[in-house]
């Protein structure tokens, strides 16, 4: 691990709550770690568990997924549907030996700018501790 290694954290958020929450973190000038990249989707219901795999394949060290709190979904139930998918994906990843700390799920509302900033910092710190996700990334080098 090089000394100035920074984790790559891919973040999938819904447009209505968490994207707006991240915007609020910005307008409130809450500082957070610069190693996240946000990908906007309309709703956490649109977030496919396979995005996580894709992100790991492309070199992500962690994936953060965040949507509206239960009951707040702009589309009423997208986040509830998403939650079930995440439950299954988590179990599967854990069976495969993939550290669940690298896949973080959160609810973050449009008013929780501070929560978003803290979340990013916490995740970033944690992943720094865990180091790069070499196991997955190295799968590439092991072609038969």
């Amino acid at each position, binding site marked *: 691990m090089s000394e100035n290694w920074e984790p790559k954290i*891919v973040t999938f958020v819904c447009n209505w709550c968490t994207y707006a929450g991240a*915007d609020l973190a910005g307008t409130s000038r809450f500082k957070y770690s610069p190693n996240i990249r946000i*990908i906007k989707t309309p709703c956490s219901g649109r977030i496919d568990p396979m995005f996580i795999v894709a992100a790991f394949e492309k070199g992500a060290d962690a994936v953060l997924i965040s949507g509206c709190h239960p009951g707040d979904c702009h589309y009423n139930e997208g986040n509830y549907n998403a939650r079930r998918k995440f439950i299954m994906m988590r179990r599967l990843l854990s069976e495969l030996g993939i550290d669940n700390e690298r896949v973080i799920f959160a609810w973050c509302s449009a008013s929780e700018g501070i929560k978003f900033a803290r979340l990013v910092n916490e995740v970033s710190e944690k992943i720094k501790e865990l180091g790069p996700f070499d196991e997955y990334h190295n799968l590439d080098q092991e072609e038969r």
Partner: protein
Amino acid sequence: MARIGVFVCWCGSNIAETVNVSKASEISGNIPGVVYSVDYKYMCSDPGQTLLKNAIKEHNLTGAVVASCSPRMHEKTFRKAAKDAGMNPYMLEMANIREQCSWVHDNKDEGTDKTIDLIRMMVEKVKRNHPLEDIKIPVTKKALVIGGGVAGIQAALDIAAGGVPVVLVERESSIGGKMAALDETFPTLDCSQCILTPKMVEVSQDPLIEIMSFSEIEKVEGYVGNFKATIRKKARYVDTDLCTGCGTCWLKCPVKVTSEFEQGLGKRKAIYIPFPQAIPSRPRIDPENCLKLTKDRCGICQKVCPTKAINYDDVDRLVEVEVGAIVVTTGYKIMPVSEFPEYGGGRYKDVVTALQFERMVCASGPTLGELQRPSDGKLPETVVFVKCVGSRDPEHHHSYCSKICCMYVAKQTMLYRHKVHNGNCYVFYIDVRSNGKNYEEFVRRAQEKEGAQYIRGRVSQVYKDGEDLVVEGADTLTNSQVKIKCDLVVLATAMEAPDGIKELAQKLGISYDQNGFLTEAHPKLKPIESSTAGVFLAGCALSPRDIPDSVSEASGAAAKVLGLLSKDEMHKDGVVAFVNEATCVACQNCIRVCPFVAIQLKDICNRKGEVLRQVADVNPGLCVGCGTCTPSCPSRSIELKGFTDAELFAEINALAEL
């Protein structure tokens, strides 16, 4: 080949302070597919927008990325500018380098690197974007209002005032609803009928409003802008076109039965109008009590009818109406006293509901306003009002507050004292909730000037001791038990969702809560919209509320309807789901997860019309673009325009190059 332009905004120093904008622009210029890149102080300013427009034209751009503030701020601005310059607006994306970069980071190198990443991600997305068109939906410029109480009346009048025809459906034989049965209204004590009946007449005379009374909704099909409602016009046995409402029939009818409108306190005939000011002022025959219809005797009404309007062979008829929007104002019912045996409800005639009390004091009521208790006609010298009966009682009945009881009980104490100047009146209450304009003053007046005695506590039992009713309860302010002998007990029973509301909600595809009240699309920001586009809600159908609230909501719903129907076509965002029919296997996952019932199965037929197979089919009019369907599809045959897998993967893929 993609020809993409990148526009990096300084936002004054907001971005430029933490991001090396010229470097970002320069490096972005090297991203494959980018043919033009520039940085500019204020992209959102007029010159900034002109810069964008000119670049689109000069460089023949197929797509653009504006790296600046949040798309929530200016996506519309830039997409409009792009459209003006001849580019499909959906081919422009924004990289959020202010809220999500410059404002949250300090280090200029890191900020610059992240900015370039964000731009790269959006460039890759734009490369895969497709031009999208707004969805255009033709609308039927006609509205349906379900429920002819004061809310429905107001909604119908306001919609008609906007020039849009309205069908007003009421299941009783007259419009007017509960308000027609009230005596006087709080907090002004003006006579309910004096303020309501003119509105009823107005409705009946408005050429744009068609009243379908004694009718119910049978079926509703279609979607926003294009509903088709089937309405059951129940057999009335009176031809409303021939009838003039002269009244000869109900004067001559020999059958007297208990009047629903009088809350069981008065009588009506078997052919009747529920109350004298009924609209339409056309009677109906009650087939369960009419001698002709039950025993084939009598037939007097037909004989005396001067216009030959009586038809004993009448049957239910179904009519279809096509409408663009629907307003649901189905109101409420109140819990009957029989639900409260501990208060003697159903056992003692002199334990009545507040609505019965209204009829007992109303000048047009069964006693013509002379206050008599039901059991023996005696003038009640002491009356006890009990509030929160069935409301705020989660252990036994409803947890919610019925909201209007505090006010109407204050009113009824005054009505009582105006009739019986020396009468005693007591009110058992939990809290007094008087949060409306002039409401607190009104309650104070009842307590301080009009002699109502308020006791804070609940009633445990009402029983008969000899001729007297005895009310036992607690006074929690003096911490004592109280026992009051009285002549009449008025229970302010809870307001409940009316019968049939769940069935109606299911027909309309809207949701209702555990109490049966209809659910608003958003409790704060969409309080009069349902979860189904084009269906609006007002009044007590949503939850207990008073007349001014119901009326203002009705006007609000009318404004929503007029807005919706103001154009020949509705336009909505092109971000909707679409199905790849070649690969869809109709497993119905998408149909099951869609919160908006926007997806249905469709038959794929051959030329002979034989069904070959089925596929999912999105109604773009109903689809709101949440994309929950996409991950549910195992063969990835349903995708969301504007957020396709290819587009989102491009963003993820861009990370590989970081």
